[in-house]
């Protein structure tokens, strides 16, 4: 199975082929169309996750019913909420720093959507949902994901509100403290795979790790190196700012952090951005630890969606169950705990791969 995805035709070329276009024009049209499709799939998932799934999941954890009046299982709340949120007045604080105040809510979702460009999402029918496969794919996705913290600082600073400012500064402190362990842990995967290219990392995980009673357990890096998986999971939670590391928002302490002053469309954009980042975090985890779109019977894309929703479910579980740590404790865990552990993991992996294997 190794190398199966490599060199495969990507979505833009497939679309260009389908439309019978060739040359640079065909690539450009195909790429735009592909990006439109992938972006909309992600936005649609966010739309389901934000107003509906999040409520339903939290309610299940906390012994409540949540939305159940509008439509089957309350699903039409998505429509009602969209109308409600978009119909609200857009209030802009009088001394807001205008260009950056307006840009921040656009930068946040955009950075997450960019990240999905290099994620291999598997097959859906004849289509291979994968927009681009650069050699430095993994580095690129981290780069895109960390643009988020710029958006948070922009929003926090430009709002001219002390709570927002504190939230923005917390976001930076948190991102710096957890980005390093996150990427160092991801490096241990790169050592296994021998490449930063997403398709190679996925393909390498297709090998059989061990065969149990006729069932092949694939060599997903979560099975190969569960320690790195857990480290990455924790760092990822902090990176996307979910409980117990949701201190940039911390409603009971700093009201809503960087998004305190945002309302209406801007608020929706921030909210979208946050959920997109959760899904992007899930997508990165699925790709480098859970075999990407691999899975039996169902099409690859379905498996991919299942995996990122599993991660979403996990974040909501943590939200319902874990208290928030304090900012100094968070930084301490990041610098004194996660960093050391992630480097230990990297060195050990390097020794095992380079010396023993």
């Amino acid at each position, binding site marked *: 199975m190794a190398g199966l995805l490599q060199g495969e035709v990507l979505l833009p070329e497939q679309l260009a082929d389908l439309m019978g276009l060739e040359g640079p024009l065909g690539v450009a049209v195909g790429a735009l169309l592909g990006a439109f499709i992938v972006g909309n799939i992600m936005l649609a998932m966010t739309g389901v996750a934000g107003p509906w799934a999040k409520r339903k999941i*939290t309610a299940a954890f906390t012994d409540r019913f949540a939305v159940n009046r509008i439509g089957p299982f309350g699903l039409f709340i998505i429509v009602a909420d969209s109308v409600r949120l978009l119909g609200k007045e857009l209030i802009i604080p009088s001394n807001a720093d205008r260009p950056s105040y307006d840009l921040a809510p656009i930068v946040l979702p955009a950075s997450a959507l960019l990240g999905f460009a290099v994620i291999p999402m598997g097959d859906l029918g004849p289509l291979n949902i994968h927009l681009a496969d650069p050699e430095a794919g993994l580095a690129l996705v981290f780069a895109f994901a960390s643009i988020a913290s710029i958006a948070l600082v922009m929003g926090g600073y430009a709002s001219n509100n002390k709570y927002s400012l504190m939230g923005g500064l917390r976001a930076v402190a948190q991102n710096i403290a957890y980005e390093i362990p996150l990427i160092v842990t991801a490096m241990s995967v790169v050592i296994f795979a021998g490449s930063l290219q997403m398709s190679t990392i996925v393909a390498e995980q297709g090998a059989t790790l061990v065969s149990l009673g006729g069932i092949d357990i694939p060599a997903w890096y979560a099975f190969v190196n569960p320690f790195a998986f857990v480290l990455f999971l924790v760092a990822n939670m902090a990176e996307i700012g979910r409980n*117990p590391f949701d201190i940039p928002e911390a*409603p*009971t*302490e700093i009201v809503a952090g960087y998004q305190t002053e945002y309302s209406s469309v801007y608020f929706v954009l921030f909210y979208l951005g946050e959920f997109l980042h959760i899904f992007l975090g899930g997508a990165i985890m699925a790709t480098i630890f859970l075999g990407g779109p691999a899975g039996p019977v169902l099409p690859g894309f379905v498996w991919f969606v299942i995996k990122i929703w599993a991660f979403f479910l996990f974040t909501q579980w943590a939200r319902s169950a874990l*208290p*928030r740590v*304090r*900012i100094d*404790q968070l930084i301490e865990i990041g610098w004194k705990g996660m960093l050391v552990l992630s480097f230990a993991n990297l060195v050990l992996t390097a020794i095992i791969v380079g010396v023993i294997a």
Partner: protein
Amino acid sequence: MSIELPETAGVTEQSPEELEALLDELVIGRDDHLNAPGYVIKPDTVVESLRRLRDDAGFDHLSCVTAQEYDDRYESIYHLKKFDDPTQEVSIVVPADKENPVSQSANAVFRTADWHEREAYDLVGIEYDEHPNLKRILLPDTWQGHPLGQSYDQDQPQVVPLREHKNPLLEDQRAASESETMYLNIGPHHPATHGVLHVKAVLDGEQVVDLEPDIGYLHRCEEQMCQNSTYRYQIMPYPDRWDYISAGLLNEWAYARVAEDMADIEVPEYAQVIRTMGAELCRMAAHFLALGTFALDIYGDFTAIFMYSIRDRERVQNILEDLTGQRLMFNYFRLGGVVWDLPEPREEFIENARDYLEELPTALEEYHDMMTANEILQLRTVDTGVLPPEVAKSYGATGPVARGSGIDYDLRRDDPYGYYDKLDWDVVVEDGCDNYSRLLVRMREVEQSAKIVEQCLDLLEDWPEDERTIQANVPRTIKPKDDTEIYRAVEGAKGELGIYIRADGTEKPARFKIRSPCFSNLQTLPEMSNGEYVPDAIASLGSLDIVLGEVDR
């Protein structure tokens, strides 16, 4: 079977004569209250008198400061008690000149005098010399006159436009440019202030340098409303509205106790058992809400704990609804008893309550699993919001806040009323002095309350049918003798809830002063939070379990 009384052997009790000898040359007269000897002293010897009483006689609890205006003078009364034995009480009465009411501040001896004297200044108009920060506390700074003073003009317009007053916004509120600190308004609109509380915070980065609670947003003139109502029926509904978070019956008991002691009403034993049961049910409901909201402050989201605590509180409220007909504003107590007996069929009521109590240990186990056993919660609460016992005493902290600081003080046992002294239960004390201890105290107090309710249910079930007297024979109007003064307290959900009443021979009180436990407890917030992080200050605020309705009255 009965509860073990605390060791009072170490607490020497002084006779009124001994105290008079101790105060010696400071005393200029006697003005005894119903349950405490009262000594009149000169306005400039307050500190000296209180210091002698505290250091040489052991009166270490300044329970309350009452101020009032007479036809010929102003008067501040310092109600002193002992934490080791609150039945020993003494009142220090400080008259002040009618034209120029100035009195010495007790702040140097008892820190709790700070807020109490500010309130006296605000509402009555006595000025306190040497007070560190004498300004209005409940009313806005722009308020004209002192509403509980005799010469107060009710018709004077109070809405003063900013242009006629110093506009607080015109002044540059920014700290000097070289300053390293940041000023932050936490509240009155903030998700974690449990009501309309405004905390003025000075921060150094994320750390609290200074913190000042600003209260009064929910001031509803409860004292004056009680002064305008008759003892017999009209006052009783008001206490429900002080600590309105399910603690209604406990508050009603505060009034019932003081009025019954004043009018010499004997409450039938059967009614006492019902009162005890109802009050403990209220305490459970109040503590459940405290648990849930504290979890909310620490977790930051509506988690299962909040829902579970609301669920358990709901069941208590159902029982209370069966008993009183109401879910929040009970109005169930009457002077001399309660308004009606247990609902019929009695067996069903008792069975319902027992079912609930049976399931309670499992529910509490759940809380322990999810809260106290959670390592992140321990990380957040252990050794944060530390309140050493001496500081707590100086601020007059009572209830779970004091008991979480290792102060073994519970009026239900130490100054027995109702049926408590005949039942078997324990006072919960934790000596961690931190947020975690206060949480533990509340959780364990729920167990003890359940134990009390259980015993009450047994008693009620077996009570002979022809002896079920729910009310004593109380006259239709109550007119205590002129100039009768009394201060009495009960153990409310948040601590010592006391009431001072002065009668003037009519059927309405001449002065009705409420000593709110939350008012005193909230004063400790700066002590607990200074130097700590903002999240810890929020956690400390949650652990104080304040109800603004009771703080502001």
